[in-house]
């Protein structure tokens, strides 16, 4: 009976993993279409400022550094949890991930607020509409990820040994790496061409 129950649990988790991969594929299409729209819209400045006039390399480097570092820390969180190390270590890495992600978001929001106050808000031109939407969609995903991390931290402390919670952490890790990959796309397609 216990055996059966274990296989049932395992197969349920593998179904959840598979389903989550499908969701990520769907989300990748969503980002792909926003990227494509951005490319189509990028010449449409309508006399407004372009990326060259707005982007700040220092801020971008810091943002990117925070997000990439958070990808490492979430991987460490999953690694410690999967190897049955102490809960404290797992929670530590998760908290660190959340802080790095929150730092990324703060820098992003500050940058976007600067653009708006400089008269380069999303209403200014087609280019800026696409820019704000692309960066904002990524930012919304990061914010959702932060809520998810917060929930999981609580669940890890309440039910340290639960396989369901561990399996959720595995999917959160996937999600977080996915957001990293999308950011690398944003970095190289949106920012880099304007800054070189």
């Amino acid at each position, binding site marked *: 009976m216990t055996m059966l129950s274990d296989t049932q649990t395992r197969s349920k988790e593998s*179904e959840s993993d*598979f389903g989550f991969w499908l*969701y990520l594929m*769907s989300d990748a*299409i969503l980002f792909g279409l926003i990227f494509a729209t951005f490319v189509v819209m990028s010449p449409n400045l309508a006399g407004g400022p372009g990326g060259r006039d707005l982007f700040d390399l220092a801020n971008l480097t810091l943002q990117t550094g925070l997000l990439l570092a958070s990808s490492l820390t979430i991987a460490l969180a999953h690694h410690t949890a999967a190897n049955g190390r102490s809960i404290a270590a797992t929670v530590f890495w998760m908290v660190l991930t959340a802080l790095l992600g929150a730092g990324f978001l703060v820098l992003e929001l500050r940058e976007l607020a600067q653009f708006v106050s400089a008269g380069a808000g999303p209403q200014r031109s087609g280019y800026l*509409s696409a820019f704000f939407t692309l960066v904002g969609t990524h930012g919304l995903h990061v914010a959702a990820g932060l809520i998810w991390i917060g929930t999981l931290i609580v*669940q890890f402390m309440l039910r340290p040994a639960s396989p369901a919670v561990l399996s959720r952490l595995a999917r959160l890790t996937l999600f977080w790496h996915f957001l990293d990959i999308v950011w690398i796309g944003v970095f190289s397609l949106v920012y880099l061409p304007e800054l070189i």
Partner: protein
Amino acid sequence: MDEPTILLGRLGMQALPFYSWVALCGALVTVGCGLGFLALVTWLGRWRDLWSGWLTSLDHKRIGIMYVILALIMLIRGFVDAIMMRLQQALSYSSEGYLPPEHFEQIFSSHGTIMIFFMAMPFVTGLMNFVVPLQIGARDVAFPAVNAISFWLTAAGAGLMLISLVIGKFSTAGWTGYPPYSEVRFTPGVGVDYWIWSIMISGVGTTLTGINFIVTILRKRAPGMTLMRMPMFVWTTLCASILIVFAFPALTVSTAMLALDRTLGLHFFTIDSGGNAMNYMNLFWIWGHPEVYILILPAFGIFSEVVATFSSKRLYGYTSLVYATAVIALLSFTVWLHHFFTMGASANVNAIFGIATMIIAVPTGVKVFDWMFTMYRGRIRFEPPMAFTVGFMCLFVIGGMTGVLLAIPPINYSTHNTTFLVAHFHNMVIPGALFGYVAGYMYWFPKAFGFRLDRTWGLRAFWFWAVGFTLAFMPLYVTGLLGMPRRMSSYANPAWHPWLILAFLGACLIFLGIVSLGMQLWVSIRDRARLTDATGDPWDGRTLEWSTSSPPPAWNFDTVPLVAERDTFHAAKQAAQPMPHQPADSFDMPKNSVSGILIGLGGFWVGFGAIWYIWWLAAAGLGLIAATMIGRSFAEHTEMRVTPGETGDVT
């Protein structure tokens, strides 16, 4: 319009439909039906049954049935729109008709939106929900709670659609909502916003359905059921689900960008400040063309099941049908530009998309031949599902041929936006998709409820639908070739007038078809003793769903069936053997959950708040969704252990 307030946004007394008697009647009927339903449930004292048996149920069969009920309700609403349009065009030769143009525009917009998103999609999703787990020998879908969320998000979208009739006005921009007309500069007010939010919210539900069914089909099949032993309906559901997962993001993106333009003043599709309206057409049809196949592939699956069962023969050319389905699914992503050949892309681009479009006719033709060869030398029983299938084969081929005509860019230029196009796509979706759903509804009804639907009324429904369809839409081919643009509320060309009267008569016959469907249901419930099927296999079926009782237990199969070939159940019957199965076991089934209905409610608040700029309501909706998801993730003991036989529930 007044300045938006914090409490009610831009909602005020002017939103109530006192501006026209037609709109007022629509609103009163909608409200009346809603209140009537609530009163009926209260009077019968069935709130508890409704809540625990249906609204919070995670049983895929119950959810499937709720989807089909939603679809049938919306079919009536969408049909009322249709016959109002036909009446208007029959009357409005050299006159205003009985509808002001602005109202006529709302009606054609809501007709298309309802029929695609809230009739066809729920209908096909409902059938997939009910049938697929039974056909693959599974006890449930992969994610039962997500399944309920999908349903309730669809219901939330449908709710927004229905409430637009009572509070505010609906879009006048057609079911495709093309900018720049749908931008706030040309269409202020809430109509386009109703359109955007109702389809975006239901679209999220559909995406979840797609994921759910891919995992269900690929991971939960009974032992021995290899991919090439799956019933055709399962194959077509799999392909449609893959299309959903890859295509629906495009709908989300295009409508979200339009919403950003309208609500926050962005410039994706505006005609000034660097907007690009044609980008919308691309995004929309990158979703829109696969959507046609999302609707029609499962219908092809139903026809395949029905034609094999009622010809008492193995399905002819199973392998070719599987490959044809996969090829159609793949090609459906390569043809979106044929919806706007006149955009002005170069001749070469148009030629490539034209050729890709024509190529789709090849696998589709393969299918038609397979169905015909299945019938050839079979012992055919003309039960209603089979009648709809044969009717489909005759009528659909006409639509396919006009589709190939429209795929030729020069011809498309001269028929663009005419009623020829309207006739063509109705020729695909009524005989192609809807006849399939109705056939599936009549075919699987005895599985769901334990009694068959009345044959006579079923055949009457078929004849009214088939003749009514022909009479309603063949004239539109003619008027299209005579140069009549679609969506005209009045016209002055005498050559079109007789054809439009004919089309109205056709719509009246379709009305009788819908009445016959209702009569069939009524008569069958009344005579259910006569129509009872105690065997679980009323049609001499071939696939696994017929091997369990009707209605099946909540867990579908007391013992998991073992599959040795494509029609294992039929082979077992031929050999007079019992169905092979695994030893009896215990397993977990999900308990009821309120999460689906709460997330649906949250989705409705988000949509209603965003439409009327009641931002606290939208935020509360988001909060409700997030709280429900987090709460659900903390819930333990969401399942119960079932041992068939111990409960005394086993047949």
